[in-house]
């Protein structure tokens, strides 16, 4: 599955994983499987001890990979990060306070099998929904942070994701704190139908408040940021950044190819493609992400002290 990621580590999984891998090596089925195109193939990541880079095929220890921001040691390929890993790599240790943890999706359309899918993803990821929001500090600069996690329903935006992001925006407005959002989403969540679509509007009216209050919003598009998320807040940062190689776009590649009956360039809808077409401020390597964020926070003059001052002002 596209959503699989390095979920488990630890010794008790090793034996099982290794044996599966070993068996797979000799499986005939596997040998003759046809792979349509490298780009459309999901990034395969093993739950086991070793991880193979989909780009340069280097095999690395999963533990090592995680230690180095999930970057390939050889080619620098950006593996997907879970929300927790992202927060850990961005926010100063011990400063993150999660908001709205308990918000849970209902099934407003009575969509078949939706609840089961949610439960499955909750168990798989340990998350309640596809976004984690909260407050924390980056190099002592207070920020409101939202991180989407593509393992949960492909990071799709339903009512809870829309609500949490909207609340994060309003919290940033209320506390006069910069907002940073890491997007990773397949778009609006189909199972919540038009209510999902309306989350684009909901987050937009909240973002408008943030704009009016002149509070900086840094949008970082990570792999993948598509559909309704790309066509709402993710594209509207005061600063639009993306990680190298991230897929970013409105419509799916297949849909476009079928519509225009023309093969698309290899780099179509990648971060680099967007940069070239003027849609991004920068493509930022993960290893430089935190430093870049700090640089912006510094320029805006938000500091630990000022954050406190603002807070005390608003409480008077």
């Amino acid at each position, binding site marked *: 599955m596209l959503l699989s990621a390095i979920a488990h580590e630890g010794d008790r999984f090793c034996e099982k994983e290794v044996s599966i891998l070993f068996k797979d090596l000799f499986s005939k089925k596997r040998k003759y499987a046809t792979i349509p195109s490298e780009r459309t193939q999901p990034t395969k990541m093993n739950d086991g001890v070793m991880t193979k880079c989909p780009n340069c095929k280097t095999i690395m220890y999963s533990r090592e990979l995680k230690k180095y921001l999930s970057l390939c040691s050889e080619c620098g390929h950006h593996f997907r990060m879970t929300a927790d890993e992202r927060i850990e790599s961005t926010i100063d240790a011990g400063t993150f306070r999660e908001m709205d943890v308990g918000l849970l999706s209902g099934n407003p359309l009575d969509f078949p099998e939706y609840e089961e899918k949610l439960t499955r993803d909750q168990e798989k990821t340990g998350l309640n929904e596809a976004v984690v929001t909260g407050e924390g500090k980056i190099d002592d600069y207070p920020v409101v942070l939202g991180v989407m996690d593509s393992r949960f329903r492909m990071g799709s935006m339903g*009512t809870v994701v829309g609500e949490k992001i909207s609340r994060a925006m309003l919290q940033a407005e209320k506390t006069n704190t910069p907002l940073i959002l890491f997007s990773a989403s397949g778009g609006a969540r189909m199972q919540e139908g038009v209510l999902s679509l309306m989350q684009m509007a909901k987050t937009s*009216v909240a973002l408008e408040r943030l704009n009016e209050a002149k509070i900086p919003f840094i949008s970082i598009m990570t792999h993948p940021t598509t559909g309704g998320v790309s066509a709402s807040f993710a594209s509207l940062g005061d600063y639009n950044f993306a990680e190298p190689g991230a897929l970013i776009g409105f*419509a799916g590649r297949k849909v476009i190819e079928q519509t*225009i009956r023309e093969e698309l360039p290899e780099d*179509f809808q990648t971060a680099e493609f967007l940069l070239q077409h003027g849609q991004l401020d920068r493509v930022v390597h993960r290893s430089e992400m935190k430093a870049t964020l700090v640089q912006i926070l510094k320029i805006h003059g938000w500091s630990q002290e000022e954050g406190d001052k603002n807070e005390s002002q608003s409480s008077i």
Partner: protein
Amino acid sequence: MSHNLPFEKPVVELQNKIDELKNFTQEKDINLESEIKHLEERLQDLESQVYDELSPWERVQIARHSERPTPLDYIDYLFTDFLELHGDRLYGDDEAIISGIARYKGRPVTVIGQQRGRNTKENIRRNFGSPHPEGYRKALRLMKQADKFGRPIICFIDTKGAFPGKAAEERGISEAIARNLVEMAALRVPTIAIVIGEGGSGGALGLGVCNHMYMLENATYSVISPEGAATILWNDASQAQQAAETMRITTPDLNAFGIIDGVIPEVRGGAHYNIEKQAAYIDQTLESSLNELLGFSSEELRNQRFEKYNQIGKIDM
């Protein structure tokens, strides 16, 4: 009507039979009055049977009807002095969106709408009503103009979606739609949107963040087309009919979700049966909506939009 939908067949057949009998009566001078009267009564029953409880899929078919009235059709009836204005001042003029200034009951307004073609040739020119980024940017340019001069904005929504193409992506279709959502939230003039046909996902919403939102009775509004949903759900686009029900895309559902401010009734069988009458229905709603919104201050308009969208799919906690 030259083009009838499959589910209308019994009505059409009976109507034809009645017409035949009437002709016969005239030509052969045989009195069939009672027979005709009886059939006409049956036709009435049949019509209400067929049209009064339309299934979601039947509504989808009406919303997509090739003769369904477009913004330009309604503009003729609703407004005076319509002057179309072109171009986004950045790249080009997207004819999938029409926009301009006009008068509504004497008051200057700005009118914007997604415009399908009314025949194949026009459809090609208008890209079947699927806008590119420059369409949304043109719309935004004219909304800002309306904002500057204090003119209310009326948007007609009818699109299968923003165009999924290479050029659209290159020129930032995501950004163009996203920008409209936020800028529309900030406008200081009354904004009214009416879904007159298909409300196709983000491409529809790109003109749809407004103070009041209405839908024609048989219009649809959805996050994905029934065909798209069926492909994802059952890997089979031909199950669109089932998907149309599952996805809850028709007016009763949208009303129940609290997404729209009202349903504009349609002429029996669909707006295309009588454009003039349909325009009169729209006119009624538009007038009362605008009158209400004109009583709002610019700050109240902005707040009303915030509250309206902030409560959709609200989770209390």
